[in-house]
């Protein structure tokens, strides 16, 4: 199972806790994880990636294993620790504003 940690505003929107667990078939990449996340929680569509372009919203970033993956290819494999469920894939909102 892939663990995904959501920022607070998206947890309230999806009515979930800090992390959700997802089954991801095939290659585990940022794209396949986010697609699985949006399939499981349709209310998150458009809140992380643009509906049309599928690009990351500018004030969100993606991390795993203490690495910033935000600008990596969405089709690059995620670290083994994420695939094995030992580490979460983190969706992080910018710490700014009130």
């Amino acid at each position, binding site marked *: 199972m892939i663990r995904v940690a959501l920022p607070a505003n*998206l947890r309230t*929107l999806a009515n979930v806790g800090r992390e959700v667990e997802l089954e991801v078939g095939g290659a585990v990449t940022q794209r396949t994880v986010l697609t699985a996340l949006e399939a499981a929680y349709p209310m998150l569509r458009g809140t992380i990636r643009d509906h049309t372009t599928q690009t990351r919203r500018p004030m969100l970033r993606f991390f795993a294993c203490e690495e910033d993956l935000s600008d990596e290819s969405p089709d690059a494999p995620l670290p083994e620790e994420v695939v094995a469920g030992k580490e979460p894939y983190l969706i992080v909102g910018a710490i700014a504003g009130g």
Partner: protein
Amino acid sequence: MTTVRLLVGTHKGAFILTSDERRERWKVDGPEFTGWDVYHVKGSPVDPKRLYASQSRGWFGQVVQRSDDGGKTWEPAGNEFKYEGAINTHKWYDNTDHPYDFTRVWHLEPSLTDADTVYAGVEDAALFKSTDAGKTWEELDALRHHPTAPSWAPGAGGLCLHTIIQDPTNPDRLTIAISSAGAFRTDDAGKSWKPINKGLRSDFIPDPDAEVGHCVHHIAMHPSRPNVLFMQKHWDVMRSDNGGDSWTEVSGNLPTDFGFVIDVHAHEPETIYVVPIKSDSDHFVPDGKLRVYRSKNGGNEWEALTNGLPQKDCYVNVLRDAMTVDNLESCGVYFGTTAGQVYASNNSGDSWKPVVENLPAVLSLEVQTLA
């Protein structure tokens, strides 16, 4: 028994306030959508249990929420607002051309005849329509493709379409307003639009009498007289007696004619309300006094309504969608402030009481009168 329900959108969530017809004691429910900006919540006039809410956040974009039980439970509806056709440009603050870019829904206007139909006014300025209760949205794109659209420029809050008025006698007529492009009207259900800004004068733009470019803050209409419109412009309070074809100023003896809200009494179509704000640089009430001004003859002659409102050390603003009237026999008037107070009058504004005093900044207020 009649119930009055106030739908409050705030900077950090939505609240629902309920009372009986006396409107003296209120129950406060919420917050819903905690931590999100709720620009607008409005109920369907066809089915008052059907509510729509605009929930947004710069980080996460736009969510539209729908309730079918009067706000007890909510369900996310569709949030894909895709501009139709070519993406054109509008002017940016520095006068460069800026591509239209969807940011948020400012205003949701449920249809007068169908609970599943709702209009959305958005930033960057465009009008969307859903006929499936918010599940999918389609742009009425003739507005954004109006020949003047490349010249539209944003106000301080962005290039937002914030006012949508339906004519109860003509389903093909819609009147909308954009800051800061002005007012527009369609008489063919959105297939074509015409600017309706004749008579507006804005001394802070290069051509004060321009066809477009006016910062209209809000427009109100009484349903019994759809050709009579009242406008709070950036500066100036205006009225039109011909559906917006021409406007005349009715600021009269107001202490300042800058402001955001304007509304019409439920039973007296010539009785209107505004909340004067000191200036476009000082967005708070003048002299530290929170005063609603009422005209009983359609403008020009205004009286200050102060009974029950703070008359010293008050520096709040009242935003464009934050005033509403109920339709009980003794008309209720309500407004919310940027300091989180919601005030109610159960006697047409003669006296006021706070309903709740410490909410987040109030962005919008709508009332439902429920039999």
